[in-house]
Protein backbone atom coordinates (compact mmCIF):
# COMPACT_ATOMS: atom_id res chain seq x y z
CA UNK A 1 0.00 0.00 0.00
CA UNK A 2 2.90 2.29 0.73
CA UNK A 3 0.50 4.56 2.55
CA UNK A 4 2.87 5.76 5.24
CA UNK A 5 5.15 7.53 2.79
CA UNK A 6 2.31 9.27 0.99
CA UNK A 7 0.84 10.40 4.30
CA UNK A 8 4.15 11.87 5.28
CA UNK A 9 4.98 13.44 1.97
CA UNK A 10 1.69 14.76 0.77
CA UNK A 11 0.51 17.23 3.43
CA UNK A 12 3.79 19.13 3.28
CA UNK A 13 3.69 19.43 -0.46
CA UNK A 14 0.02 20.29 -0.42
CA UNK A 15 0.29 22.95 2.21
CA UNK A 16 2.94 24.70 0.22
CA UNK A 17 0.82 24.64 -2.88
CA UNK A 18 -2.28 25.81 -1.07
CA UNK A 19 -0.49 28.65 0.65
CA UNK A 20 0.70 29.93 -2.70
CA UNK A 21 -2.82 30.17 -4.15
CA UNK A 22 -3.75 33.54 -2.57
CA UNK A 23 -0.39 34.90 -3.62
CA UNK A 24 -1.01 33.82 -7.20
CA UNK A 25 -4.52 35.25 -7.17
CA UNK A 26 -3.30 38.53 -5.72
CA UNK A 27 -0.56 38.82 -8.33
CA UNK A 28 -3.01 38.00 -11.13
CA UNK A 29 -5.50 40.59 -9.89
CA UNK A 30 -2.72 43.11 -9.55
CA UNK A 31 -1.66 42.50 -13.13
CA UNK A 32 -5.16 42.56 -14.60
CA UNK A 33 -6.84 45.23 -12.45
CA UNK A 34 -5.11 48.35 -13.84
CA UNK A 35 -6.20 47.35 -17.36
CA UNK A 36 -9.81 46.69 -16.33
CA UNK A 37 -10.57 49.15 -13.54
CA UNK A 38 -9.48 52.73 -13.76
CA UNK A 39 -7.29 53.04 -10.69
CA UNK A 40 -4.99 56.06 -10.69
CA UNK A 41 -1.38 54.86 -10.30
CA UNK A 42 -0.82 57.02 -7.24
CA UNK A 43 -3.60 55.16 -5.43
CA UNK A 44 -2.32 51.78 -6.40
CA UNK A 45 0.68 51.43 -8.69
CA UNK A 46 0.98 48.79 -11.37
CA UNK A 47 3.23 45.84 -10.78
CA UNK A 48 5.43 46.96 -13.64
CA UNK A 49 6.11 50.32 -12.01
CA UNK A 50 6.95 48.67 -8.68
CA UNK A 51 9.35 46.29 -10.40
CA UNK A 52 10.84 49.10 -12.45
CA UNK A 53 11.52 51.36 -9.48
CA UNK A 54 12.83 48.42 -7.48
CA UNK A 55 15.16 47.51 -10.31
CA UNK A 56 16.34 51.09 -10.59
CA UNK A 57 17.08 51.41 -6.89
CA UNK A 58 18.71 48.01 -6.76
CA UNK A 59 20.97 49.02 -9.64
CA UNK A 60 22.10 52.31 -8.11
CA UNK A 61 22.60 50.57 -4.75
CA UNK A 62 20.32 52.91 -2.80
CA UNK A 63 17.87 50.19 -1.82
CA UNK A 64 20.58 47.92 -0.48
CA UNK A 65 22.13 50.87 1.33
CA UNK A 66 18.85 51.84 3.00
CA UNK A 67 17.98 48.31 4.06
CA UNK A 68 21.49 47.75 5.38
CA UNK A 69 21.50 51.01 7.32
CA UNK A 70 18.15 50.11 8.90
CA UNK A 71 19.38 46.68 9.93
CA UNK A 72 22.59 48.22 11.22
CA UNK A 73 20.68 50.62 13.45
CA UNK A 74 18.49 47.82 14.68
CA UNK A 75 21.54 45.71 15.51
CA UNK A 76 23.28 48.55 17.34
CA UNK A 77 20.15 49.40 19.32
CA UNK A 78 19.56 45.76 20.11
CA UNK A 79 23.11 45.21 21.36
CA UNK A 80 23.19 48.41 23.43
CA UNK A 81 19.76 47.78 24.93
CA UNK A 82 20.45 44.18 25.87
CA UNK A 83 23.98 44.67 27.13
CA UNK A 84 22.68 47.09 29.70
CA UNK A 85 19.33 45.47 30.38
CA UNK A 86 20.27 41.86 31.07
CA UNK A 87 23.07 42.30 33.65
CA UNK A 88 21.18 45.14 35.32
CA UNK A 89 18.00 43.08 35.34
CA UNK A 90 19.77 40.14 36.95
CA UNK A 91 21.41 42.41 39.53
CA UNK A 92 18.08 43.98 40.41
CA UNK A 93 16.16 40.74 40.54
CA UNK A 94 18.52 38.71 42.71
CA UNK A 95 17.76 40.99 45.64
CA UNK A 96 14.12 41.00 46.66
CA UNK A 97 14.18 44.42 48.25
CA UNK A 98 15.91 46.12 45.36
CA UNK A 99 13.52 44.39 42.99
CA UNK A 100 10.57 45.82 44.93
CA UNK A 101 12.03 49.31 44.67
CA UNK A 102 12.58 49.13 40.92
CA UNK A 103 9.55 47.19 39.83
CA UNK A 104 6.92 49.96 39.63
CA UNK A 105 9.35 52.28 37.88
CA UNK A 106 10.28 49.60 35.35
CA UNK A 107 6.65 48.68 34.79
CA UNK A 108 5.87 52.31 34.12
CA UNK A 109 8.84 52.92 31.85
CA UNK A 110 8.08 49.73 29.96
CA UNK A 111 4.58 50.97 29.29
CA UNK A 112 5.86 54.22 27.78
CA UNK A 113 8.72 52.61 25.91
CA UNK A 114 8.86 52.72 22.18
CA UNK A 115 7.62 55.20 19.72
CA UNK A 116 6.58 57.74 22.38
CA UNK A 117 10.26 58.56 22.95
CA UNK A 118 10.77 59.75 19.38
CA UNK A 119 9.91 63.44 19.99
CA UNK A 120 12.21 63.65 23.00
CA UNK A 121 14.92 61.82 21.08
CA UNK A 122 14.66 64.39 18.30
CA UNK A 123 15.24 67.18 20.83
CA UNK A 124 18.18 65.43 22.41
CA UNK A 125 19.91 64.03 19.35
CA UNK A 126 18.45 65.93 16.42
CA UNK A 127 17.06 64.27 13.31
CA UNK A 128 19.22 61.33 12.32
CA UNK A 129 20.88 58.12 13.44
CA UNK A 130 21.31 59.15 17.07
CA UNK A 131 17.61 59.66 17.67
CA UNK A 132 16.60 56.43 15.94
CA UNK A 133 19.21 54.32 17.72
CA UNK A 134 18.28 55.90 21.04
CA UNK A 135 14.63 54.99 20.55
CA UNK A 136 15.43 51.40 19.58
CA UNK A 137 17.90 50.88 22.41
CA UNK A 138 15.44 52.44 24.83
CA UNK A 139 12.59 50.23 23.66
CA UNK A 140 14.69 47.09 23.86
CA UNK A 141 16.19 48.07 27.20
CA UNK A 142 12.93 48.60 29.03
CA UNK A 143 11.18 45.67 27.44
CA UNK A 144 13.98 43.28 28.24
CA UNK A 145 14.99 44.47 31.69
CA UNK A 146 11.39 43.91 32.69
CA UNK A 147 11.45 40.39 31.29
CA UNK A 148 14.83 39.61 32.83
CA UNK A 149 13.55 40.65 36.26
CA UNK A 150 10.43 38.54 35.74
CA UNK A 151 12.55 35.60 34.62
CA UNK A 152 14.82 35.66 37.66
CA UNK A 153 11.89 36.23 40.01
CA UNK A 154 10.11 33.23 38.56
CA UNK A 155 12.85 30.84 39.67
CA UNK A 156 11.41 28.96 42.66
CA UNK A 157 13.05 30.30 45.88
CA UNK A 158 13.46 26.73 47.07
CA UNK A 159 16.13 26.21 44.41
CA UNK A 160 18.19 29.04 45.89
CA UNK A 161 17.89 27.50 49.33
CA UNK A 162 18.76 24.05 48.02
CA UNK A 163 21.80 25.36 46.17
CA UNK A 164 23.02 27.30 49.22
CA UNK A 165 22.49 24.49 51.64
CA UNK A 166 24.60 22.31 49.38
CA UNK A 167 27.35 24.86 49.62
CA UNK A 168 27.08 26.65 46.29
CA UNK A 169 29.02 29.88 46.05
CA UNK A 170 27.34 33.09 44.88
CA UNK A 171 29.15 32.72 41.58
CA UNK A 172 27.85 29.18 41.14
CA UNK A 173 24.34 30.33 41.98
CA UNK A 174 24.60 33.05 39.37
CA UNK A 175 25.94 30.87 36.57
CA UNK A 176 24.27 27.57 37.32
CA UNK A 177 20.94 28.70 38.66
CA UNK A 178 20.02 32.30 37.93
CA UNK A 179 21.17 32.57 34.34
CA UNK A 180 19.90 29.21 33.09
CA UNK A 181 16.72 29.61 35.10
CA UNK A 182 15.93 33.01 33.67
CA UNK A 183 17.24 32.32 30.19
CA UNK A 184 14.03 31.14 28.58
CA UNK A 185 12.14 34.14 29.85
CA UNK A 186 14.98 36.40 28.71
CA UNK A 187 14.88 34.91 25.23
CA UNK A 188 11.11 35.18 25.03
CA UNK A 189 11.60 38.77 26.15
CA UNK A 190 14.20 39.35 23.45
CA UNK A 191 11.78 38.21 20.80
CA UNK A 192 9.00 40.41 22.18
CA UNK A 193 11.35 43.35 22.52
CA UNK A 194 12.43 42.83 18.94
CA UNK A 195 8.80 43.17 17.81
CA UNK A 196 8.61 46.51 19.59
CA UNK A 197 12.12 47.45 18.49
CA UNK A 198 11.24 46.75 14.88
CA UNK A 199 8.24 49.07 15.07
CA UNK A 200 10.41 51.64 16.81
CA UNK A 201 12.94 51.36 13.99
CA UNK A 202 10.45 51.78 11.17
CA UNK A 203 8.42 54.44 13.02
CA UNK A 204 11.53 56.21 14.29
CA UNK A 205 12.99 56.40 10.80
CA UNK A 206 9.73 57.80 9.49
CA UNK A 207 9.70 60.57 12.08
CA UNK A 208 13.38 61.18 12.74
CA UNK A 209 15.40 59.36 10.10
CA UNK A 210 17.60 60.55 7.29
CA UNK A 211 17.98 57.15 5.66
CA UNK A 212 16.64 53.63 5.99
CA UNK A 213 13.67 51.65 4.85
CA UNK A 214 11.18 53.58 7.01
CA UNK A 215 12.57 56.90 5.83
CA UNK A 216 12.33 56.16 2.12
CA UNK A 217 8.80 54.80 2.58
CA UNK A 218 7.48 57.96 4.27
CA UNK A 219 9.47 60.25 1.97
CA UNK A 220 7.65 58.74 -0.99
CA UNK A 221 4.33 60.01 0.40
CA UNK A 222 5.30 63.60 -0.40
CA UNK A 223 5.85 62.78 -4.05
CA UNK A 224 2.99 60.32 -4.33
CA UNK A 225 5.47 57.61 -5.31
CA UNK A 226 3.17 54.84 -4.23
CA UNK A 227 5.31 52.20 -5.93
CA UNK A 228 8.10 52.98 -3.46
CA UNK A 229 5.67 52.82 -0.53
CA UNK A 230 4.33 49.45 -1.60
CA UNK A 231 7.76 48.01 -2.16
CA UNK A 232 8.85 49.38 1.24
CA UNK A 233 5.94 47.60 2.92
CA UNK A 234 6.77 44.31 1.25
CA UNK A 235 10.41 44.60 2.29
CA UNK A 236 9.42 45.46 5.86
CA UNK A 237 7.14 42.42 6.01
CA UNK A 238 9.68 40.03 4.54
CA UNK A 239 12.54 41.29 6.72
CA UNK A 240 10.47 40.80 9.84
CA UNK A 241 9.44 37.29 8.82
CA UNK A 242 13.03 36.36 8.14
CA UNK A 243 14.31 37.77 11.43
CA UNK A 244 11.57 36.31 13.54
CA UNK A 245 11.50 32.86 11.97
CA UNK A 246 15.15 32.30 11.16
CA UNK A 247 16.78 33.89 14.19
CA UNK A 248 14.47 34.16 17.14
CA UNK A 249 12.29 31.12 16.72
CA UNK A 250 15.33 28.93 16.11
CA UNK A 251 17.12 30.41 19.11
CA UNK A 252 14.09 29.93 21.28
CA UNK A 253 13.53 26.34 20.19
CA UNK A 254 17.16 25.44 20.80
CA UNK A 255 17.34 26.91 24.28
CA UNK A 256 13.93 25.71 25.34
CA UNK A 257 15.07 22.26 24.35
CA UNK A 258 18.45 22.65 25.97
CA UNK A 259 17.15 23.84 29.31
CA UNK A 260 13.93 21.95 29.08
CA UNK A 261 11.77 24.65 30.57
CA UNK A 262 8.74 24.14 28.42
CA UNK A 263 5.80 25.95 29.86
CA UNK A 264 2.52 24.13 30.40
Amino acid at each position, binding site marked *: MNESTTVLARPFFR*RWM*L*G*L*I*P*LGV*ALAVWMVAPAVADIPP*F*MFPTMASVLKSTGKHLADGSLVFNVASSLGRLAIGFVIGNTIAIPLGIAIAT*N*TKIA*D*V*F*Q*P*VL*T*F*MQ*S*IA*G*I*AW*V*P*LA*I*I*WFGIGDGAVIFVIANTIFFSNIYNTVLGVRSIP*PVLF*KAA*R*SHGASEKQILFDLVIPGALTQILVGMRTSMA*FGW*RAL*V*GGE*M*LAGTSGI*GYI*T*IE*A*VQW*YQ*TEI*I*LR*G*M*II*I*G*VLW*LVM*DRLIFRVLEDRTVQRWGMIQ*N
Partner: protein
Amino acid sequence: MTTEAIPAAAAKRSFRSPKNAKRIRQLGGILAVVVAWQISVWVIDLPPYFYPGPSNVFDAFIELVERGILPPYIGDSVGRYALGVFCGTSIGVLIGLLIGLSRLMSAVLAPTINFFYSIVEVAWIPLFVIWWGYGIKTIIVALVYVAAFPVLYNTLIGVRTVPTVLINASKSLGATNLQVLVNVILPSALPNIFTGFRIGAGFAFRGLIFAEMIAAQTGVGYLIFEGANSQQTDRTIVGMITIGLMWLVIDRAYLSPVEKITIERWGLVSDSK
Protein backbone atom coordinates in the same frame (compact mmCIF):
# COMPACT_ATOMS: atom_id res chain seq x y z
CA MET B 1 21.64 38.67 50.17
CA THR B 2 18.77 38.39 52.58
CA THR B 3 18.66 35.62 55.08
CA GLU B 4 15.18 34.38 54.34
CA ALA B 5 16.15 30.86 55.35
CA ILE B 6 16.05 31.76 59.04
CA PRO B 7 12.53 31.35 60.40
CA ALA B 8 13.03 33.93 63.16
CA ALA B 9 13.78 36.62 60.60
CA ALA B 10 10.71 35.66 58.65
CA ALA B 11 8.58 35.89 61.78
CA LYS B 12 9.97 39.33 62.50
CA ARG B 13 9.18 40.49 59.03
CA SER B 14 5.62 39.24 59.10
CA PHE B 15 5.23 41.30 62.26
CA ARG B 16 6.03 44.39 60.27
CA SER B 17 3.69 43.16 57.56
CA PRO B 18 5.85 42.34 54.54
CA LYS B 19 3.14 43.56 52.22
CA ASN B 20 3.31 47.06 53.65
CA ALA B 21 7.08 47.02 53.56
CA LYS B 22 6.89 46.09 49.89
CA ARG B 23 4.46 48.93 49.17
CA ILE B 24 6.72 51.39 50.93
CA ARG B 25 9.74 50.20 48.95
CA GLN B 26 7.77 50.49 45.71
CA LEU B 27 6.60 54.01 46.51
CA GLY B 28 10.15 54.83 47.55
CA GLY B 29 11.37 53.74 44.15
CA ILE B 30 9.02 56.10 42.32
CA LEU B 31 9.84 58.94 44.69
CA ALA B 32 13.56 58.31 44.33
CA VAL B 33 13.33 58.58 40.55
CA VAL B 34 11.50 61.92 40.75
CA VAL B 35 13.96 63.29 43.31
CA ALA B 36 16.96 62.06 41.33
CA TRP B 37 15.50 63.65 38.21
CA GLN B 38 15.05 67.03 39.96
CA ILE B 39 18.55 66.90 41.45
CA SER B 40 20.04 66.01 38.07
CA VAL B 41 18.28 69.05 36.60
CA TRP B 42 19.89 71.27 39.24
CA VAL B 43 23.30 69.71 38.81
CA ILE B 44 23.45 69.44 35.02
CA ASP B 45 21.80 72.82 34.45
CA LEU B 46 20.71 72.53 30.84
CA PRO B 47 18.11 74.82 29.24
CA PRO B 48 14.63 73.62 30.24
CA TYR B 49 13.57 73.03 26.65
CA PHE B 50 16.37 70.47 26.42
CA TYR B 51 16.07 68.87 29.82
CA PRO B 52 13.00 69.97 31.77
CA GLY B 53 12.68 69.06 35.43
CA PRO B 54 9.71 67.63 37.32
CA SER B 55 8.63 71.11 38.37
CA ASN B 56 8.49 72.33 34.75
CA VAL B 57 6.57 69.24 33.79
CA PHE B 58 4.14 69.72 36.64
CA ASP B 59 3.57 73.36 35.62
CA ALA B 60 3.00 72.28 32.03
CA PHE B 61 0.54 69.65 33.23
CA ILE B 62 -1.44 72.25 35.23
CA GLU B 63 -1.40 74.60 32.26
CA LEU B 64 -2.58 71.94 29.84
CA VAL B 65 -5.41 70.97 32.15
CA GLU B 66 -6.45 74.55 32.91
CA ARG B 67 -6.50 75.48 29.26
CA GLY B 68 -8.66 72.46 28.59
CA ILE B 69 -6.18 70.84 26.21
CA LEU B 70 -5.16 67.63 27.91
CA PRO B 71 -8.55 66.13 28.92
CA PRO B 72 -10.12 66.31 25.43
CA TYR B 73 -6.88 64.99 23.92
CA ILE B 74 -7.03 62.00 26.22
CA GLY B 75 -10.69 61.57 25.32
CA ASP B 76 -9.90 61.62 21.61
CA SER B 77 -7.09 59.11 21.97
CA VAL B 78 -9.15 56.76 24.12
CA GLY B 79 -12.09 57.00 21.72
CA ARG B 80 -9.95 56.19 18.69
CA TYR B 81 -8.25 53.37 20.53
CA ALA B 82 -11.50 51.83 21.77
CA LEU B 83 -13.15 52.04 18.35
CA GLY B 84 -10.13 50.65 16.50
CA VAL B 85 -9.48 47.80 18.90
CA PHE B 86 -13.15 46.86 19.13
CA CYS B 87 -13.62 46.72 15.36
CA GLY B 88 -10.27 45.01 14.82
CA THR B 89 -10.93 42.36 17.44
CA SER B 90 -14.42 41.62 16.14
CA ILE B 91 -13.20 41.30 12.59
CA GLY B 92 -10.29 39.14 13.71
CA VAL B 93 -12.46 36.74 15.70
CA LEU B 94 -15.09 36.44 12.98
CA ILE B 95 -12.68 35.81 10.14
CA GLY B 96 -10.50 33.60 12.34
CA LEU B 97 -13.48 31.39 13.19
CA LEU B 98 -14.67 31.23 9.59
CA ILE B 99 -11.27 30.27 8.27
CA GLY B 100 -10.41 28.00 11.19
CA LEU B 101 -13.53 25.93 10.78
CA SER B 102 -12.39 24.78 7.38
CA ARG B 103 -9.21 22.79 7.15
CA LEU B 104 -8.84 23.67 3.50
CA MET B 105 -9.37 27.40 3.99
CA SER B 106 -6.88 27.59 6.83
CA ALA B 107 -4.24 25.80 4.78
CA VAL B 108 -4.88 28.17 1.89
CA LEU B 109 -5.00 31.40 3.84
CA ALA B 110 -2.68 30.89 6.82
CA PRO B 111 0.55 31.88 5.01
CA THR B 112 -1.09 34.99 3.59
CA ILE B 113 -2.39 35.99 7.01
CA ASN B 114 1.04 35.41 8.40
CA PHE B 115 2.56 37.65 5.80
CA PHE B 116 0.15 40.51 6.41
CA TYR B 117 0.60 40.02 10.14
CA SER B 118 4.30 40.69 9.69
CA ILE B 119 3.86 43.96 7.79
CA VAL B 120 3.74 46.13 10.89
CA GLU B 121 1.01 48.75 11.04
CA VAL B 122 3.64 51.45 11.10
CA ALA B 123 4.53 50.50 7.55
CA TRP B 124 0.92 50.80 6.38
CA ILE B 125 0.52 54.37 7.51
CA PRO B 126 2.23 55.94 4.45
CA LEU B 127 -0.13 54.07 2.12
CA PHE B 128 -3.15 54.93 4.25
CA VAL B 129 -2.11 58.57 4.17
CA ILE B 130 -2.05 58.42 0.37
CA TRP B 131 -5.47 56.80 0.32
CA TRP B 132 -7.27 58.82 2.96
CA GLY B 133 -5.06 61.76 3.80
CA TYR B 134 -3.98 62.93 7.22
CA GLY B 135 -6.91 62.33 9.50
CA ILE B 136 -8.98 60.11 11.69
CA LYS B 137 -9.80 57.58 8.98
CA THR B 138 -6.15 56.71 8.53
CA ILE B 139 -5.72 56.28 12.28
CA ILE B 140 -8.77 54.10 12.74
CA VAL B 141 -7.93 51.85 9.81
CA ALA B 142 -4.38 51.43 11.10
CA LEU B 143 -5.71 50.48 14.55
CA VAL B 144 -8.22 48.04 13.12
CA TYR B 145 -5.44 46.49 11.11
CA VAL B 146 -3.03 46.15 13.99
CA ALA B 147 -5.67 44.78 16.36
CA ALA B 148 -7.21 42.38 13.86
CA PHE B 149 -4.21 40.36 12.74
CA PRO B 150 -2.95 38.95 16.05
CA VAL B 151 -6.55 38.08 16.96
CA LEU B 152 -7.18 36.50 13.58
CA TYR B 153 -3.97 34.51 13.71
CA ASN B 154 -4.47 33.27 17.25
CA THR B 155 -8.16 32.52 16.76
CA LEU B 156 -7.18 30.41 13.79
CA ILE B 157 -4.64 28.52 15.87
CA GLY B 158 -7.14 28.16 18.71
CA VAL B 159 -9.82 26.70 16.46
CA ARG B 160 -7.36 24.43 14.66
CA THR B 161 -6.08 22.98 17.93
CA VAL B 162 -9.44 22.04 19.40
CA PRO B 163 -9.08 18.28 19.90
CA THR B 164 -11.06 16.55 17.16
CA VAL B 165 -12.12 14.01 19.78
CA LEU B 166 -14.15 16.66 21.55
CA ILE B 167 -15.92 17.72 18.39
CA ASN B 168 -16.62 14.12 17.38
CA ALA B 169 -17.80 13.24 20.87
CA SER B 170 -20.29 16.08 21.06
CA LYS B 171 -21.48 15.41 17.52
CA SER B 172 -22.04 11.74 18.24
CA LEU B 173 -24.03 12.78 21.30
CA GLY B 174 -26.31 14.70 18.98
CA ALA B 175 -24.97 18.24 19.13
CA THR B 176 -25.84 20.48 16.21
CA ASN B 177 -23.11 22.32 14.34
CA LEU B 178 -24.09 25.54 16.07
CA GLN B 179 -23.90 23.86 19.46
CA VAL B 180 -20.48 22.48 18.64
CA LEU B 181 -19.33 25.94 17.64
CA VAL B 182 -20.73 27.73 20.69
CA ASN B 183 -20.12 25.09 23.34
CA VAL B 184 -16.97 23.32 22.18
CA ILE B 185 -14.93 25.29 19.68
CA LEU B 186 -15.41 28.80 20.98
CA PRO B 187 -14.66 28.06 24.65
CA SER B 188 -11.59 26.02 23.87
CA ALA B 189 -10.29 28.66 21.46
CA LEU B 190 -10.98 31.47 23.90
CA PRO B 191 -7.60 31.52 25.67
CA ASN B 192 -5.92 31.79 22.27
CA ILE B 193 -8.32 34.49 21.17
CA PHE B 194 -7.47 36.38 24.30
CA THR B 195 -3.74 35.99 23.77
CA GLY B 196 -4.25 37.53 20.35
CA PHE B 197 -6.40 40.29 21.78
CA ARG B 198 -3.73 41.14 24.31
CA ILE B 199 -0.94 41.26 21.75
CA GLY B 200 -3.13 43.30 19.42
CA ALA B 201 -4.19 45.69 22.17
CA GLY B 202 -0.56 46.28 23.09
CA PHE B 203 0.63 46.96 19.56
CA ALA B 204 -2.49 49.00 18.81
CA PHE B 205 -1.67 51.36 21.66
CA ARG B 206 1.80 52.01 20.26
CA GLY B 207 0.27 52.23 16.81
CA LEU B 208 -2.18 54.85 18.06
CA ILE B 209 0.61 57.05 19.40
CA PHE B 210 2.54 56.76 16.16
CA ALA B 211 -0.49 57.36 13.94
CA GLU B 212 -1.42 60.42 15.97
CA MET B 213 2.08 61.82 15.56
CA ILE B 214 1.79 61.50 11.79
CA ALA B 215 -1.85 62.01 10.97
CA ALA B 216 -3.75 63.78 13.76
CA GLN B 217 -4.45 67.27 15.02
CA THR B 218 -5.47 66.15 18.51
CA GLY B 219 -4.64 63.31 20.90
CA VAL B 220 -1.71 62.52 23.17
CA GLY B 221 0.48 61.35 20.29
CA TYR B 222 -0.05 64.72 18.62
CA LEU B 223 0.66 66.43 21.95
CA ILE B 224 4.10 64.89 22.38
CA PHE B 225 5.08 65.48 18.77
CA GLU B 226 3.86 69.08 18.69
CA GLY B 227 5.51 69.71 22.06
CA ALA B 228 8.85 68.67 20.62
CA ASN B 229 8.33 70.63 17.40
CA SER B 230 7.62 73.83 19.30
CA GLN B 231 10.38 73.08 21.83
CA GLN B 232 7.84 72.82 24.65
CA THR B 233 9.56 69.71 25.90
CA ASP B 234 7.74 69.85 29.22
CA ARG B 235 4.53 69.23 27.31
CA THR B 236 6.12 66.29 25.54
CA ILE B 237 6.98 64.75 28.89
CA VAL B 238 3.49 65.39 30.25
CA GLY B 239 2.26 63.51 27.19
CA MET B 240 4.70 60.64 27.72
CA ILE B 241 3.68 60.24 31.34
CA THR B 242 0.04 60.34 30.28
CA ILE B 243 0.75 57.64 27.71
CA GLY B 244 2.39 55.44 30.33
CA LEU B 245 -0.48 55.92 32.76
CA MET B 246 -3.08 55.31 30.07
CA TRP B 247 -1.47 52.03 29.14
CA LEU B 248 -1.20 50.96 32.77
CA VAL B 249 -4.88 51.72 33.31
CA ILE B 250 -5.89 49.85 30.15
CA ASP B 251 -3.67 46.94 31.11
CA ARG B 252 -4.52 46.67 34.80
CA ALA B 253 -8.14 47.71 34.85
CA TYR B 254 -9.23 46.04 31.68
CA LEU B 255 -6.95 43.49 30.06
CA SER B 256 -5.68 41.66 33.14
CA PRO B 257 -9.10 41.02 34.75
CA VAL B 258 -10.58 39.76 31.49
CA GLU B 259 -7.59 37.50 31.04
CA LYS B 260 -7.92 36.17 34.57
CA ILE B 261 -11.60 35.42 34.08
CA THR B 262 -10.92 33.71 30.76
CA ILE B 263 -8.22 31.51 32.19
CA GLU B 264 -10.21 30.64 35.32
CA ARG B 265 -13.36 29.94 33.44
CA TRP B 266 -12.10 28.13 30.36
CA GLY B 267 -8.38 27.93 30.05
CA LEU B 268 -5.63 25.70 31.28
CA VAL B 269 -7.97 23.11 32.68
CA SER B 270 -6.93 20.18 30.58
CA ASP B 271 -3.17 20.65 30.58
CA SER B 272 -2.54 21.43 34.24
CA LYS B 273 -2.06 17.72 34.93
